[in-house]
């Protein structure tokens, strides 16, 4: 399998958010600002790559009957590590992502990659798959976060864009606005990139 194929799949053809619709809960919740989106993406990429690597290493040792609980333990361990490091060295981000860091454990995106890719492929390919899927997640949530922050708060990465008279549409900060924008982004994505890549 070629690495470029992996990245094409992760980012466009099988984008975890825009095509596979995995992990919607955290996507809708944390994309209210670009900063939160980037922070969450970094956490997801770290957990996804590390858990893919470890699961790929131990894939031949674990009995298939209890593979799912073992995957969850591995994922939970890395999530807890990420959470501890974030609490220690990136406090502000830790506060604003709140409950969604521990919830990465039950993000089906990570379990899906462990089950469908890392448990069947070698270490290097699994790491690359984790990175590719993580980048796909990043592209989706940062796009959504950017649109939501600009429309909902009139700012980008915390910088005010339109001056004081701008009346921000608060609905885009709330999950309802996230649903609407996510639908629009998926529609645009389907019409442009995805169909081109598939045909």
């Amino acid at each position, binding site marked *: 399998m070629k690495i470029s194929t992996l990245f094409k799949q992760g980012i466009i053809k099988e984008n975890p958010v825009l095509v596979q619709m995995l992990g919607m809960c955290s996507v809708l919740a944390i994309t209210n600002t670009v900063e939160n989106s980037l922070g969450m993406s970094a956490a997801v990429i770290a957990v996804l790559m590390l858990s893919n690597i470890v699961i790929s290493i131990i894939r031949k040792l674990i009995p298939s009957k*209890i593979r799912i609980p073992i995957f969850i333990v591995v994922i939970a361990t890395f999530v807890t590590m990420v959470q501890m*490091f974030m*609490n*220690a060295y990136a*406090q502000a981000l830790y506060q604003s992502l709140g409950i969604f860091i521990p919830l990465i454990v039950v993000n089906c995106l990570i379990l899906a990659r462990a089950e469908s890719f890392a448990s069947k492929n070698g270490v290097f390919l699994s790491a690359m798959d984790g990175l590719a899927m993580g980048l796909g997640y990043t592209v989706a949530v940062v796009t959504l976060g950017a649109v939501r922050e600009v429309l909902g708060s009139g700012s980008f990465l915390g910088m005010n864009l339109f001056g004081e008279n701008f009346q921000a549409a608060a609905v885009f900060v709330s999950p309802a606005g996230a649903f609407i924008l996510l639908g629009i982004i998926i529609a645009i994505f389907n019409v442009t990139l995805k169909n081109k890549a598939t045909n």
Partner: protein
Amino acid sequence: MKETIKLGLVLLLVTAIAGGVLAGVNSITGPVIAEREKMESLSAILELFPDANDSVEYDEAQVAEVANDNPAIREVTEVIDSGETIGYAMSVVTGGYAGDITTLVGVNADGTLAGIKVLVMSETAGLGSKIVDDPAFAESFQGKGAGGNVTASGAGAGDDEVMMLSGATVSTNAVVRGVNEALDAFANNLSN
């Protein structure tokens, strides 16, 4: 049967390794987190007592003595300005709507409130979280408490009344409960 035991042992091994790794990470990050939380609580004390230039943190035995009948009290710090005790900052933990709320309560030497600051909470965003997000809430405590305790009512205009946040009764009352425990402990064990 034999297979069940084998599967159980494999799972035990995996979780044991995971636990060991996490213990290692915790020993690195734990002190950093504790240090940062201490810095935060010190800067919070300065917010409540802008004049303070020194402070003495009570050790466990002293805190236990002050807390006595007020188990919500976890930490007590004597706040000092030019050698004179100007008040006490007490951190209290009370049960809110969603988990514990840690509040830093500043009590002046005359028994009135210097102010409060909610340090840790996980209340509902937009409702209970107003105990942090709405600055008027914390402000409504300042100078109150001369009568020994405060109650939450309306905008909190009256004597010893503090602001009742609409839609956040449980959260408001949790903070008020903690503040009253601090006032009580001050009256019983700290004021001379």
